[in-house]
């Protein structure tokens, strides 16, 4: 426990030290303020931007898109994974496909999706699902594999209906693996949607950042950037802590 605390303290010290160094370098002119602005300015700019309300629409847009992509990716991925798990022949075909799918930079489909579906929410959601669903599918397959046969026998002995078996036995047993897939799906949905908005879009936070960059408004750009990164880190952090808690509860019984 003390070691864990020491690690945590050093980690915070390292991050604080890096931020302080950046601040000093910017203030003393070692780093050109036209390139990077001091972290304190970034925070001030972020508070300005978010407080002014001009971003409300973009924030709602971006996060509803991310949430939609995330939910759809989980739904499609889990369903597809469960279906493939039932047939070993299908699995033989799908496994190598999933292994190589991961290596394809899914993002390059975005321009095609824009041409197909028009500029707006639809191509962003599809992009988020395309990058997140396979990860969920992989984790569903490995989660279902990890359910030990004895548990299923137990369910049969107790004459549970298929729905109850799923809800009471399979789901809790597979949950840790499923969860890691959900975590990946969230970060892929986040990356996909914001990257899409950044490259080619007319709304959202990603677009706001690229717009600020193109109009040489560095202060706004860094504020927005900090905002997006803080939210991304927080969202991933919550799932990370939650996952750790789930794992600990399992290990203590």
């Amino acid at each position: 426990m003390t070691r864990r605390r020491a690690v945590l303290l050093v980690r915070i010290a390292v991050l604080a030290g890096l931020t302080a160094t950046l601040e000093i370098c910017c203030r003393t002119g070692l780093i050109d303020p036209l390139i990077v602005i001091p972290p304190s300015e970034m925070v001030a700019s972020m508070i300005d931007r978010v407080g002014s309300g001009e971003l409300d629409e973009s924030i709602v847009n971006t996060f509803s898109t991310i949430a939609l992509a995330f939910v759809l990716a989980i739904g499609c991925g889990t369903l597809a994974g469960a279906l493939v798990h039932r047939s070993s022949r299908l699995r033989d075909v799908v496994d190598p496909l999933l292994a190589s799918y991961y290596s394809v930079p899914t993002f390059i489909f975005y321009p095609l999706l824009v041409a197909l579906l028009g500029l707006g929410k639809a191509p962003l959601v599809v992009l988020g699902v395309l990058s997140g669903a396979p990860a969920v599918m992989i984790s569903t397959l490995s989660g279902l594999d990890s359910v030990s046969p004895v548990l299923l026998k137990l369910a049969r002995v107790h004459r549970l209906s298929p729905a109850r078996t799923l809800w009471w036995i399979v789901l809790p047993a597979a949950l840790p693996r499923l969860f890691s897939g959900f975590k990946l799906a969230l970060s892929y949905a986040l990356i996909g949607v914001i990257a899409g908005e950044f490259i080619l879009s007319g709304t959202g936070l990603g677009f706001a950042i690229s717009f600020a960059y193109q109009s040489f408004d560095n202060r706004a750009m860094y504020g927005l950037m900090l905002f997006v990164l803080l939210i991304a880190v927080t969202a991933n952090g919550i799932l990370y802590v939650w996952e750790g808690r789930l794992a600990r509860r399992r290990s203590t019984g």
Partner: protein
Amino acid sequence: MSDFAFEDASSRRTSRGRIRTFDAAVLVLLMLAIWQAIGSWTHGVAVSPPLQTLLYLFDLVRTGMFWQHAAATLAAFLLAFVLSALIGLALGLIFGVRRFAGEVAEPILAGFYTIPKVTLYPVVLLIFGLGMSAKVAFGVMHGLVPMTLFTLGAVRTLPPVLIRTARVMRLSPARTMLWVLVPACLPEIVNGLRISFSLTFLGVLIGEMFSSQRGLGFLLVNGMAQHNVPLSTAVVTVIVVVSIAANSMMLRLRGRTAHRSN
């Protein structure tokens, strides 16, 4: 008796293999059919159908223009990949051996791995300016962290006796890494290289798609902007084929290294 059993097993294996090949062929045909369906359903305004794309691609690879763009992407990618592989390997080994430093660094690296790095691309552009070095830096930003994390994980789960033996033999840190750690972690390192390869490629391509004048990423966005549908579809096809080929090559390589270490 045993001869017979052997024959039986092998014939079963080939018949299963045959089913697999058949299924894979069906799958490829299915994907081509979907591609064709999307192409003809939209009358080729978004995606050009497979055959047409292939014909266009044959013409495209005969032009010097295509090879200039491909060479620009390849040069940026190779440089970024070599940099992220070497730096990531070194960092991973150091963080793996120095437990405390590793525990401090790992969540920071993992956090960086999951954030949308595109938002940082303007900073890269401001620091490095438009051009090759920005693309390389952005590729390294994507590829460095997975390489580090994979190597770190591999070194950490290594039997401690190996590191102790190296210490007993008074190997210098550099020799310990080269003679003990790297060979022992080879399968994991190859796996890290594989992930790092695809993410570096992604980073370079995104860099090219946003404010660049050269490279396959630029060609793709440009094709879209000029409503040259066959061009953008052909570029996407090339990228997909190249990344799948590279990935399967590295999967095979990992299989081979895993056998050797056992």
